[in-house]
């Protein structure tokens, strides 16, 4: 349509017809038209002077983009394991009944679409869902009825009566139903801070001195991998080139993680201050905050903080009067892809491409965003860096352990009385943490999300730190009544959905592991299937190209290691090696459909052939 076409071209123009801004363009087109149709691909390709297939390649990668028209209201129900254990099925059933559609479908009037989405960062207030960009937490079936009725009547998400959350969740630019559940603010991230103090301190030092201070603090990356931050900055500073970048990874997609959401809500200024300090230290003038699409509701608020920092001389030119030092930040929204939390995939996404991880080496410090030297750190890491500048490295190393200085912000969810955010010095044991969060009768703890490790009570004396149980901060608590294999299966489902598909072991192996694990859950497994899971899991771990694939077998490998009896218990009792792998009726179902009749061979049999 000519109308759509001109709108699409206007959108492209708004972003300077810059192919590097393809993500923003696709987000705008999707929001405008409810889909990215075939014609839109042509419009965008023409405006940006690129091939249609390049546009299609990026557009089909992200879950939030759709080639078919979606409803005016897209309801995305979070199907994370914590949500499943918190009544997600009831909510899903109520939505199906009220809307008369299945998940993946759109109502005939074009008003509603129903979808599932992985963890949206609300595990401490599950079950949760998104209505377009609006977060609805602790959803009940009554709330579902009310939401559907209100949207049908008013056709306006803004009319939903949602109780606003605490702290800045009630800010006029946020107005979200989200609770911080900040149970224990610590000395680093959630301590009160005055904007500009840390930056002023940094600017009074030479950039190399700033890096020395960060190195002396022994700060390690808070995203989970734990790479020494000072070294990362030093490499980037030392890399050849005048144009460098500071990128903040706010694509917190690890199931059970939501601490960055609370930091973004309550301590975003500190994070931006840390980014600015990094910019000064490595010689960068440009920063990017990569904000996951699920946190779109925080964007206006974050833009406002950036505007205020510009007005206060904390961003822009000659920052805090320091002649020649300029730095600013733009926000890049994601569009539903867990893999973009992997740092090089995140950079691909920032460049307007598919969220495929990049080949390493070269590392981002040498060739990052647009092939230029780039520092990329987690939200929490930048906060810590700013506080280290403010209070000195000695203050920081006085907390935590030798190998893991400072505090860690943990996201605790699941079977406990006080789920939420805890900022605690590194080195706390699982047992101590469980006592603090009010968990009793704990059967298993998942440390580090789906990519992490599930441990049983025998290992609850282990410490949370880089030298023992390293994690990005996701702690999911499961009572002894929970089925650990069902939990593992939910995580495998997650990886099957979220694999980018670049490399063979992750793309194919995750599906194979998922299906073989399924045998244990439906009672058709043999003892040899445990060996298969171990061997194939190991192959996926060894051969995968990026961190996602290298950890994607953990749900299987970890549960076999800690809960082997759960596997053995479910092996077929009769020891038979026959398996219901082939159902002849199912095998010819497509042909039967075309023929309009069933084969005579099935006679009067009911159901599939007997196994």
């Amino acid at each position, binding site marked *: 349509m000519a109308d759509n076409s001109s709108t699409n071209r206007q959108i492209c123009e708004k972003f300077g017809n810059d192919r590097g801004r393809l993500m923003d363009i696709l987000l705008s087109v999707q929001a405008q038209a409810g889909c990215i149709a*075939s014609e839109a*691909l*042509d419009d965008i390709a023409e405006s940006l002077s690129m*091939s*249609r*297939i*390049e546009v*299609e*390649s990026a557009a*089909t*990668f992200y879950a939030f983009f759709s080639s078919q028209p979606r409803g005016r209201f897209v309801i995305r129900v979070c199907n994370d394991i914590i949500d499943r254990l918190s009544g997600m099925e009831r909510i899903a059933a109520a939505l199906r009944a009220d809307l008369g559609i299945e998940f993946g479908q759109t109502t005939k009037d074009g008003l509603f679409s129903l979808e599932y989405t992985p963890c949206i960062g609300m595990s401490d207030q599950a079950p949760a869902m998104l209505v377009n960009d609006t977060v609805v937490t602790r959803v009940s079936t009554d709330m579902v009825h009310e939401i559907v009725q209100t949207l049908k009547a008013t056709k306006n998400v803004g009319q939903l009566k949602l109780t606003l959350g605490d702290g800045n969740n009630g800010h006029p630019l946020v107005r979200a139903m989200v609770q911080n559940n900040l149970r224990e603010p610590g000395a680093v991230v959630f301590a009160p801070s005055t904007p500009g103090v840390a930056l002023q301190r940094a600017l009074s030092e030479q950039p190399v001195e700033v890096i020395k201070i960060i190195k002396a603090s022994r700060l390690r990356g808070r995203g989970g991998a734990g790479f020494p931050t000072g070294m990362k900055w030093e490499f980037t500073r030392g890399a050849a080139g005048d144009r460098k970048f500071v990128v903040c990874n706010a694509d917190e997609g690890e199931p059970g993680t939501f601490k960055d959401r609370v930091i973004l809500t309550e301590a975003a200024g500190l994070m931006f201050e840390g980014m600015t300090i990094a910019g000064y230290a490595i010689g960068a003038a440009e920063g990017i905050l990569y904000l996951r699409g699920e946190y779109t509701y925080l964007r206006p608020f974050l833009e406002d903080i950036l505007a205020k920092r510009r007005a206060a001389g904390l961003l822009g030119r000659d920052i805090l009067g320091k002649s020649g030092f300029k730095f600013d930040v733009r926000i890049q929204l994601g569009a539903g*892809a867990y*893999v973009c939390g992997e740092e090089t995939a995140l950079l691909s996404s920032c460049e307007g491409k*598919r*969220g495929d991880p990049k*080949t390493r*080496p070269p590392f981002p410090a040498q060739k990052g965003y647009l092939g230029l030297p780039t520092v990329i750190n987690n939200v929490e890491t930048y906060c810590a860096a700013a506080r280290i500048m403010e209070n000195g490295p000695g203050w920081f190393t006085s907390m935590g352990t030798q190998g893991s200085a400072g505090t860690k912000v943990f996201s605790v969810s699941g079977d406990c009385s006080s789920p939420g955010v805890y900022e605690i010095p590194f080195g706390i044991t699982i047992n101590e943490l469980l006592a603090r969060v009010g968990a009793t009768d704990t059967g298993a703890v998942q440390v580090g999300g789906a990519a992490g490790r599930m441990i049983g009570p025998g290992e609850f004396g282990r410490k949370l730190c880089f030298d023992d149980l390293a994690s990005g901060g996701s702690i999911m608590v499961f009572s002894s009544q929970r089925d650990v294999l069902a939990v593992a299966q939910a995580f495998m489902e997650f990886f*099957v*959905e*979220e*694999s*980018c*598909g*670049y*490399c*063979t*072991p992750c*793309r*194919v*192996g*995750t*599906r*194979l592991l998922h*299906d*073989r694990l399924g045998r244990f859950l439906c009672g058709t497994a043999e003892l040899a299937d445990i060996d*298969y899971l171990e*061997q*194939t899991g190991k*192959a996926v771990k*060894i*051969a*995968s*190209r990026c961190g996602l694939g290298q950890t994607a077998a953990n749900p299987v490998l970890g549960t076999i290691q800690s809960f082997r009896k759960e596997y053995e218990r479910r092996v077929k009792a009769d020891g038979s090696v026959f398996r219901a*792998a082939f159902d002849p009726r199912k095998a010819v179902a497509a042909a039967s459909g075309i023929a309009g009749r069933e084969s005579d061979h099935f006679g009067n049999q009911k159901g599939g052939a007997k196994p």
Partner: protein
Amino acid sequence: MSAKVAFTIDGKEVQGEQGQTILQAAALAGIYIPHLCAMKGLSPWGSCRVCTVMVNGRPQAACTMPITEGMVVENDTPELKDLRSSMVEMLFVEGNHFCMFCEKSGNCELQAMGYRLGMLAPRHDYMFPTRTVDASHPDVLLDFNRCILCARCIRASQELDGKHVFDFTHRGGHKRIGVNAANGAAGTDLKVTDRAAAAESCPVGCIIKKRVGFAVPIGQRRFDTQPIGSDIEAGRAATK
């Protein structure tokens, strides 16, 4: 002349040049490291993971990993052979590969790799996906049942033909090759003479030229007489 880099593969001293990948340096030294997505003349890609080697004890893709002085590479070990076979078996079960009536049989690198690695039946369960065939182009047939997502056609089109006929769409298990037109290959500027349409650019039988099928009879094809990698190993023999 680039700087020399000395390293070892399975204990054997290899001299490479600065900037080479392990795969390139090994091939020049007559050492075959099994691979599918890597192709001479195209930029390294690193997706099939068949060329996984151990570098100083850590797994790396030989096709993307640059060589460094003193690097210790393990290539021909039972563990790696099994890992590679597992990857190849994954590619077999992921698609619909019926060698007995595939035009590429005997010239197919996936099939040849299966033989070379001693694969019998895949240890993995077949997925039997529903995939499409694009026969719209007058001279080239695209049978996606056989695609292993190696990106060789994508890179050949861009890097050798200066076009952008192919690219990946979707992700994960839904990932597939797309063409630069809404109506299939016929709508693209693909020519049968393009390097992207050449038999060597597609390791399997996904890209097939029309009307020239079975021009070389079964039994006289590339891998009918000697295993894949023999040409590289013959290079080693020649330099002895």
